[in-house]
């Protein structure tokens, strides 16, 4: 199994010279089994380039499955620009958490309403199927076995453990840590006092996450903030690499991938983050890779390591 990063940025796309090496497009990761099965996780702006690649590869209409962590714009904005959707006969399964009483198709369809996009979802040639996911309720998609995991993010978010080819990886974004703030379905202008129930919910969410990550080879984690940025915005629903390392260390994960980079982080800052956390990870026995657009990682232990080889995690050329 391998995964490829098509968008690694959080919040909104940031084109420009300052982000050209790590990439400016928002969340989208493609997973491939050794047999060629494909699952797409999140439909941020990176999904446009992925769609163009899939069109070049495809022989006729295909069936794609998209797992959504949540439906904030930076995780769904690429969907209307996914070119295979305009090929008649294409089937697209969208899997997402249902956090409100609405129908999932209305929520996804809402991004193509007349005011926002020229073509309504119903007029798109591909056939869409909507599947509600529920934390802890496992399911299979081709060669993949999927386990949704509840995360701590405004209006709800879900991570995925994805097993296949005898190995596994997990997508843990977007999420805040599980101590200071609990995200529910209302606007937070800052941290609110926690009740005992809130603390118990956070603890349960954290325990379940660690439990699901035990034995996972590679964890892609929302590490939007540096620690000092997190202190200023603890209610924004994102984590730091330190918080991700803590979780991965408890679950004894082999490799952590830093992901969902803050739009303000320039390539130079990202190089420093990559280097700093490569070192921190090494102290804990965890390989830390900082994701960038175009990065492909093999999941599972690599056969034989060439000690002379430069670690690919230090950053893009």
């Amino acid at each position, binding site marked *: 199994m391998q995964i490829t990063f098509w968008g690694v940025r959080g*919040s*909104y*796309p*940031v*084109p*420009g*010279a300052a*982000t*050209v090496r790590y*990439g*400016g*497009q928002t969340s989208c990761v493609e997973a491939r089994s050794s047999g060629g099965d494909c699952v797409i996780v999140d439909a941020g*702006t990176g999904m*446009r380039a992925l769609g163009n690649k899939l069109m070049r590869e495809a022989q006729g209409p295909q069936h794609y499955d998209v797992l959504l962590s949540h*439906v*904030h*714009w930076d995780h*769904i*904005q690429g969907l209307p*620009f996914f070119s295979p959707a305009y090929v008649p006969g294409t089937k697209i399964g969208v899997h997402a958490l249902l*956090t*409100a009483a*609405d129908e999932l198709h209305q*929520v996804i369809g*809402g*991004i193509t*309403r*007349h*005011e*926002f*996009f*020229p073509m309504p979802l119903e007029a798109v040639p591909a056939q869409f199927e909507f599947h509600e996911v529920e934390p802890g309720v496992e399911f299979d998609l081709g060669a993949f076995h999927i386990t949704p995991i509840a995360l701590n993010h*405004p*209006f709800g978010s879900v991570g995925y453990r994805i097993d296949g080819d005898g190995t596994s990886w997990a997508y843990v974004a977007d999420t805040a840590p599980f101590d200071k703030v609990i995200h529910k*379905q*209302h*606007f*937070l*202008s800052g941290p609110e006092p926690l009740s005992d129930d809130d603390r118990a919910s956070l603890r349960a969410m954290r325990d379940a996450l660690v439990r699901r990550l035990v034995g996972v080879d590679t964890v892609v984690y929302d590490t939007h903030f540096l620690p000092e940025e997190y202190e200023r915005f603890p209610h*924004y*629903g994102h984590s730091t690499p330190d918080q991700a390392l803590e979780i991965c260390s408890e679950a004894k994960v082999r490799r952590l991938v830093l992901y969902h980079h803050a*739009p303000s982080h320039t390539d130079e800052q990202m190089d420093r983050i990559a280097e700093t956390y490569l070192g921190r990870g090494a102290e804990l026995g965890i390989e830390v890779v900082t994701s960038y*657009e175009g990065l492909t990682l093999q999941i599972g232990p690599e056969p034989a390591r060439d000690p002379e080889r430069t670690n690919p995690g230090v950053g893009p050329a």
Partner: protein
Amino acid sequence: MKIRFWGVRGSFAMAGREFLRYGGNTTSVELLTDAGQRLLIDLGTGATELAKQLMTSEFGRGQGRLPILLSHTHLDHIQGLPFFTPFFIKGNEIRILGAKPTSGISLEATLQNQLDPHYSPLNGLENLAAGVSIDEIVPGGTIVVPGFEVHTIAVPHGSMWTTAYRISADGKTVTYLSDVEYPNLDEPLSEAIALARGADLLIHDAMHADHDYELRRGWGHSPARAGVIVAERAGAKKLALFHHSPDATDEMIDEVVQRTSASTQVPVFAAAEGSYLEI
């Protein structure tokens, strides 16, 4: 009057080395009078870059005043709204002006839908700390914005209408005609020509290279040639090709500029992210 293009890309923000010279941010254009009055057109991702600059001025202290004209509410023109940091500072007064969307839903409800809790943690306009007013305008009239005289018309854009603007200040005029496709390319709407009459700068939708247009007729956008026809008939002094296709690399845009320039006496350039230009 000065102008700065903060976002020139149509439809989709394009990050990558092939887009660095013209820029990959979606549409946002700033106009500044000699006296320092400011007006913004459209809130694409380019607006987030302007926001950083504004935050170092009175907007960072909650004393900023800014009118924003929207051409329409397709996402590439409003995508920067939730990340336009002056909205998060109490005391700033930001006025968004635009037409009621063609669907009949109000402009305010449309922006509320953008910030719906499913899609945005802001959970609605009411959570923006700045004072935000949303004024629905009726295209065809004149609007008053401090320092600027603004004329508006509605132009066809696929299945909807967008608002085009003629903006004058300091004795200079800029016409903004983005996201437009004329029913007959060779006979652009007389209202559009009137809006660009004698303009010092015409900013025109040039989403498609002329040779790509036939495949994309009816999609709501213009080929580069449309701006030339309007500029020539209107006697505009300069033409900025704008709303570049997300597929257009820097080299492709260079080529469009070259071909378009060769076809007309009107000076032509492709709008690019960058510095302030004197009108």
